[in-house]
C-alpha cells in the first residue's frame, strides 16, 4: 500500500498543475485574569502550512511553534483513486454535526488545558488512515478511520484543573495510556448522505471504537508492593493507577434546513445523539468509567441583515451523576467586512452554573485581525462553571495571516 501511495504521489507531482502554496500565521495573545490582575496568557505562536493540490493527490504539512514547543499540526498525504480518497498522516477529522457540544466528534483528541479556547483550536491532529468512499450517482459518503495509537485528550490544567477524587491513602498517581498496537487502535466508520426534504436534509451515522478521552481510576495498588492491591485505601500508602477505558460510541446526526412562512430568514435544525458504552454500563464498577447517553438539539436562525443565532440544548445521562442538562445561546454578527461580534452563553441547568463568552473581531487589513475577548463564570464553587468563577479573563489577540 505504501508503495502504491508513493507512486501515486510521484505521479501526482509530475502532473502538478500548480506549485505548492505556503501560508501561515503569527499570533500574539495576551490574557489578564480580572479577579487578581494576574497575567495568564502572554504567548506568541507561529504556524506555517505547506499545501500542494495536484490532479490526483494533495499534500499538507503544518508546522506549529510556540515558546518551548515546536510540533507538527496537520500533516498528511491524500490520493484520489476514482470513487475513493485515501489519506494518511496527522489528520483532523470531523465526525459530528452540532456546535459547542458534539458527542460524536470524538475521533481526534482535544487540548482542554485552557478550556475557553475556541473548539476548532482545541482539536489536535491524530496519526491515522482515512479511506473515504463516494458511491457513484449518490450523494452518500462512507468514511473508514483507523488510528494505530490512541492519544488521550489534555485535561484542563493549572487553575482550570479539578482535583481527582482519590482516597486519602494515595501517595502516588500513575497514568497508563494504551500502548500502540493493532488491537489498541481507534477505529471509526461514518456514513452520511443528503436528501431533498424541505430545504435539504443531511443524515449521518457514526460508530467509533475508541477510549474515554480522560483517564479514570483503574486500580489501587499497595505502594510498598505494587503487585498487590492496596489493603486500606484510607490509610495507604497506595498507588492510584489511572487509565483509559474502551468506549464504543454509536450515534446518529442530522441537519435540516427549512423556512417558516411569514418569518424572514432561514432555519437550520441540527441534532446529534450518541450512546457511549464502556465495560460498566450499570455504573457499579469503581474501576471502569460509566457508560452514557448524550443528545444535542440545535436551532440556527439568521435574522435578515442581522446576526446568526444558535440555540442549543444538551442532555446527558450516566449512572453517576444521572441526568445533566445544558442550554446554550450563541450569536455571530458580521457588522461589515471588518467587524464581527460574537458571543456565547452556556448554562448548566442542573447545577445552575454558567459561562458568558463575548468576543469582538476586527479585521485591520487583509490577513491582520485583532480579537478582544472576555470570559465570565458563575455558580457555586463545586459546580461545573462555578469552579472556574475566579478564572474570568479579559484578553486580546493580534493575528497576522500570510
Amino acid at each position, binding site marked *: 500500500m505504501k508503495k502504491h501511495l508513493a507512486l501515486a504521489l510521484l505521479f501526482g507531482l509530475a502532473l502538478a498543475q500548480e506549485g505548492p502554496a505556503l501560508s501561515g500565521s503569527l499570533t500574539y495573545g495576551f490574557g489578564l485574569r480580572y479577579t487578581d490582575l494576574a497575567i495568564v496568557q502572554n504567548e506568541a505562536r507561529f504556524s506555517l502550512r505547506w499545501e500542494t493540490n495536484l490532479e490526483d493527490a494533495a499534500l499538507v504539512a503544518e508546522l506549529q511553534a510556540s515558546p518551548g514547543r515546536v510540533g507538527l499540526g496537520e500533516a498528511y498525504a491524500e490520493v484520489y483513486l476514482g470513487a475513493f480518497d485515501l489519506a494518511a498522516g496527522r489528520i483532523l477529522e470531523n465526525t459530528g454535526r452540532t456546535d459547542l457540544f458534539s458527542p460524536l466528534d470524538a475521533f481526534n483528541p482535544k487540548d482542554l488545558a485552557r478550556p475557553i479556547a475556541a473548539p476548532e483550536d482545541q482539536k489536535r491532529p491524530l496519526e491515522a488512515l482515512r479511506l473515504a468512499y463516494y458511491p457513484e450517482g449518490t450523494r452518500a459518503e462512507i468514511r473508514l478511520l483507523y488510528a494505530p495509537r490512541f492519544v488521550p485528550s489534555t485535561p484542563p490544567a493549572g487553575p482550570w484543573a479539578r482535583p481527582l477524587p482519590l482516597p486519602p491513602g494515595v501517595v502516588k498517581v500513575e497514568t497508563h495510556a494504551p500502548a500502540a498496537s493493532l488491537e489498541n487502535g481507534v477505529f471509526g466508520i461514518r456514513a452520511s448522505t443528503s436528501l*431533498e426534504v424541505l430545504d435539504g436534509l443531511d443524515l449521518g451515522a457514526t460508530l467509533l471504537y475508541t477510549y474515554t478521552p480522560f483517564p479514570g481510576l483503574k486500580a489501587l495498588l499497595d505502594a510498598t508492593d505494587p503487585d498487590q492491591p492496596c489493603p486500606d485505601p484510607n490509610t495507604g500508602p497506595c498507588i492510584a493507577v489511572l487509565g483509559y477505558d474502551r468506549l464504543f460510541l454509536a450515534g446518529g446526526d442530522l441537519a435540516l434546513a427549512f423556512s417558516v412562512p411569514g418569518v424572514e430568514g432561514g432555519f437550520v435544525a441540527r441534532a446529534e445523539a450518541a450512546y457511549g458504552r464502556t465495560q460498566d454500563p450499570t455504573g457499579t464498577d469503581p474501576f471502569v468509567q460509566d457508560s452514557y447517553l448524550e443528545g444535542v438539539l440545535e436551532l440556527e436562525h439568521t435574522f435578515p441583515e442581522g446576526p446568526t443565532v444558535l440555540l442549543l440544548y444538551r442532555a446527558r445521562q450516566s449512572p453517576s451523576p444521572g441526568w445533566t442538562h445544558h442550554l446554550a445561546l450563541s450569536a455571530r454578527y458580521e457588522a461589515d467586512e471588518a467587524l464581527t461580534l460574537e458571543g456565547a452563553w452556556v448554562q448548566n441547568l442542573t447545577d445552575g452554573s454558567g459561562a458568558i463568552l463575548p468576543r469582538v473581531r476586527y479585521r485591520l487589513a487583509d490577513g491582520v485581525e485583532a480579537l478582544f475577548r472576555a470570559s465570565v463564570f458563575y455558580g457555586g464553587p463545586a459546580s461545573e462553571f462555578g469552579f472556574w468563577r475566579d478564572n474570568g479573563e479579559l484578553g486580546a489577540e493580534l493575528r497576522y495571516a500570510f
Partner: protein
Amino acid sequence: MRRFWVWVLLLAAPALALSGEEVLKQVEARPRPKTFHGKLAMELINKQGKRLTRELEIWTKREGSVEKMLIKFLAPPDVRGTAFLAIRKGGREEMKLYLPALKKVRRIAGGQKKGSFMGSDFSYDDISKLGSLKSENYQSKLLREEGAFYVVEATPKPGVESAYERLVLWVEKPHFDVVKIEFYRKGALYKVMTLDEIQTYAGKYRIPTRLVMENKKTRHKTVLLQRELELDHPIPDSVFTERFMKR
C-alpha cells in the same frame, strides 16, 4: 411630406417597441455558455475607500433546468479553502458552505440566502443567480427607453422567493446586455449593480468582466473582476459535490 413621415413614425412606433416581458425574454435568449470556469478577484471597498481583496475560483454548469455553481476562495489565507456550492433544480435551490477551519459543510437555509456572501455586498442568492435571469419569475414592465437602453421594471411573481421587492434593469438595445440593475427593498433603493467591460467570447458570448455591487445604505461596494475564463469546456459533475468542496 413632413406630415406623412410623422404619421409613418407614429404608426410604426408601437409595432417596433418591445414590452418589458419581451425585453427580458431577449435578455434570456442571448447565447450563454453551458459551462464556465474562471478566476475572480473580489474587492470589498468601504465608504472610506479602504479595500480588502479576495481571490476566487468559480465553476458553473447548466444542463436543462439544472444549474450548478461552485466557488472556492484561494486568498487571503484566512478564508482560503472556504467553498460555496449552489445547485438549482427547477424551483428548488440548495446552498452549502464548507468551512475549512471547522472541517464542516454547513447548509445555507431559506432566508439565510439573502445574507452577505463572505462579507461582500452580494448575497448568496445574488451570487448563485449571476448571469441567469428567469423572466418567468417576474412580472415585467417597460418603464421607458433611455437613449440606447430599455429600462424595465421586474417584480417577483407571487410565490417566488426573492430578497427584493422589485428590480429595475437597464438593457442595452443592440445586444440586450444588462448593464445595470437597481434592487429595491422596503420601498427604497437598496443596491445597485453595474455590469461593464463587456467582452465577446467565442464570437457569441457577451460577458461582463467587471461587476460592481453598491449598497446604497452603507455606501459599501464590492467589485468582481473576472479573469482567465474558460467557456464550454467540459466540467464533470463531480466538481459540484461536497467531496470537491473539501479538497
